[in-house]
């Protein structure tokens, strides 16, 4: 994991002091609310429905035990004893007081964390594959790139007042777990077919929200050494030419769409050609310095099969089921990556109490080489677990209420906070998620249904990624009540696709039954071993639409 040097440390400390000064200037009236709001947002402070909200960056989703314990402490001391992991792998506290935020930032800085650029019209916290460094399908670890971008984008003098927010994601694997094509810039590490050198495939203009779009490739093979200059060129074109007349048309995806990906790429290349790369890019020693922090940890040499594990699996079907569903193949023999579900029945998706955070921190320290990850699906990962330790981990998780075996299944629902917290929401999302979880609580049934991603957003901003849910649910307001629009066929993976609307909106109580009907069509029609999304692709929308029309309506 990356560790701050004296410069990183000083930068973050100075950011804390700067924010404290901004708060003081707000209180004495030097800064108007209109001036202060963008400044507080750039430090992750929102004013939500009931209180302020603080969004803490978890850069590319990586944490150590000490950091997670500090989050637990902040949750207890300054919040209500719980936090919410978001689809951008950040952590949100829902109840901090503005007066306490400088102190919270100080506690974060103590563990090399911050809230820098977790909101606002600037380059946001960069995300990466949550199985980085672990996955078998990885060409190169994306985290050194992500860390380089984190530093480069922090307090950027030119790109801190962009037309709109700007999100960058990096992956180094075959399977795109970072959903790079749904980002303003997506970087995919790949090998050049001739030189075998690792390069970036650069896509621009992806994004969800009001106008969902899949990013377009503007460079097939960008040499790694040119990264920062190329990013500077993209950002400069966007900063100068992105629309500022309409907030809903201000993302780079609209510019790319309006002038065309080719023309956009041409402008970027023209700007890039004028830049003096060596004076902008990080030198190779700096890149190597960062990369060294992500060198593989000290793995033991282990047999590929653990007898302890196999015996425990044979003896305990519930444990066996959890191992089957919640672990992922590791590139090192004898190791596995464990995904801890933050979707147990009855809990808001992505929420974790301070006590649960401490439990997970202990497990990471003891069993996962002091490392853990946050996934965009709002779960946690212990990335380096010895197979033989799985039974002990499972028992501890069970005691903390975190042993749900549902990763990737119908109850592993992605949900934004919705109207229970969010000031922008048009409807609630958490209770919808909970009602569906309840409806499909039966483990046997979940297993029978297999992989199915439900994603819920409480408004068109799509923080819950509903567009790319196999089943997407969007909460809206219709004639003074909450109404839910269901989409089908979205996909966040390699075959990224935007879901299509099934029919008229539903009342909250009608949603679980509607999901039930959709699932019933799949179960009746599927071929041998065909997943939900594959079946939807093969069958098309028609049979699902027909079933959807039969959902009993509460009101005409």
């Amino acid at each position: 994991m990356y560790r701050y040097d004296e410069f990183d440390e000083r930068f973050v400390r100075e950011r804390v002091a700067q924010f404290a000064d901004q708060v003081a200037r707000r209180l004495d009236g030097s800064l108007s609310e209109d001036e202060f709001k963008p400044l507080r947002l750039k430090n992750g402070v929102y004013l939500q429905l009931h209180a302020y909200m603080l969004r803490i960056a978890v850069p590319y989703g990586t944490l150590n035990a000490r950091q997670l314990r500090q989050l637990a402490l902040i949750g207890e001391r300054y919040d209500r004893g719980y936090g919410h992991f978001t689809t951008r792998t950040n952590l949100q506290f829902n109840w901090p007081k503005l007066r306490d935020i400088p102190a919270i930032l100080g506690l974060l800085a103590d563990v090399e964390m911050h809230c820098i650029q977790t909101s606002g019209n600037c380059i946001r916290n960069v995300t990466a594959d949550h199985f980085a460094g672990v996955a078998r399908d990885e060409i190169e670890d994306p985290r050194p790139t992500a860390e380089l971008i984190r530093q480069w984008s922090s307090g950027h003098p030119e790109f801190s007042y962009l037309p709109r927010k700007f999100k960058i994601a990096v992956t180094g694997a075959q399977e795109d777990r970072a959903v790079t094509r749904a980002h303003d810039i997506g970087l995919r590490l790949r090998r050049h077919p001739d030189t075998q050198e690792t390069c970036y495939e650069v896509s621009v203009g992806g994004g969800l929200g009001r106008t969902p779009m899949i990013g377009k490739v503007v460079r097939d093979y960008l040499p790694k050494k040119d990264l920062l200059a190329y990013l500077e060129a993209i950002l400069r074109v966007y900063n100068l030419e992105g629309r500022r007349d309409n907030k809903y048309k201000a993302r780079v995806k609209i510019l790319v769409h309006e002038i065309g990906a080719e023309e956009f790429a041409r402008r970027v290349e023209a700007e890039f050609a004028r830049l003096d790369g060596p004076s902008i890019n990080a030198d190779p020693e700096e890149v190597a310095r960062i990369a060294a922090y992500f060198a593989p940890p000290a793995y033991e040499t282990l047999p590929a099969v653990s007898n302890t594990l196999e015996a425990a699996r044979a003896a305990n079907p519930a444990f066996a089921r959890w191992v089957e569903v919640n672990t992922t193949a590791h590139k090192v023999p004898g190791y596995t990556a464990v995904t801890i579900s933050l979707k147990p029945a009855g809990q808001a998706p992505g929420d974790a109490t301070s006590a649960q955070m401490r439990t997970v921190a202990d497990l990471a320290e003891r069993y996962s080489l002091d490392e853990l990850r946050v996934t965009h699906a709002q779960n946690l990962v212990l990335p380096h677990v010895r197979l033989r330790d799985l039974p002990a981990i499972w028992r501890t998780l069970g005691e903390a209420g975190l042993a749900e075996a549902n990763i990737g299944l119908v109850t592993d629902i992605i949900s934004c906070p919705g109207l229970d917290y969010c000031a922008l929401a048009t409807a609630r999302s958490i209770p919808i998620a909970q009602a569906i979880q309840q409806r499909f609580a039966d483990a046997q049934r979940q297993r029978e249904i297999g992989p199915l991603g439900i994603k819920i957003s409480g408004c068109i901003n799509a923080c819950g990624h509903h567009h790319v849910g196999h089943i997407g649910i969007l909460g809206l307001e219709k004639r003074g009540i909450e109404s839910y629009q269901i989409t089908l066929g979205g996909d966040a993976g390699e075959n990224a696709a935007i879901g299509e609307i099934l029919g008229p909106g539903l009342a909250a109580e009608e949603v679980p039954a509607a999901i039930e009907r959709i699932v019933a069509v799949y179960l009746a029609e599927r071929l041998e071993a065909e997943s939900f999304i594959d079946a939807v692709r093969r069958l098309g929308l028609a049979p699902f639409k027909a079933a959807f029309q039969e959902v009993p309506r509460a009101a005409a």
Partner: protein
Amino acid sequence: MAAAAKRVPLPAILLANDLLDGDVVFAAAAGPGGLAWTRDPARALVASDDAAAERLEAFAAAELRGNTVVDAYLVDIALEGGRPVPRHFRERFKTLGPSNRPDLGKQAGEGIAPAPKG
């Protein structure tokens, strides 16, 4: 504030967020002819006519200028058992708290019942 044309239907209450704490606060009667903020929605002053609404608006403008609250606006309500209840579900949540956590927020008495010492 001459924007009476854009005003919500009456009766209405005035709510805002406290600048320093972020808590949802309501304008309530305080002393003779005065107004002050309360965290208790049941104590919100209900404006039933234009004069009363104008008074709330003037209070809001002064408090925004004085940097004590943010996001102050009038909310139309119905009286239920003598208590003002916002007509829109969004503002109703602001008087209650998160619906999935009945143990938190105003519905749990936070900021309303005297806080425990400590």
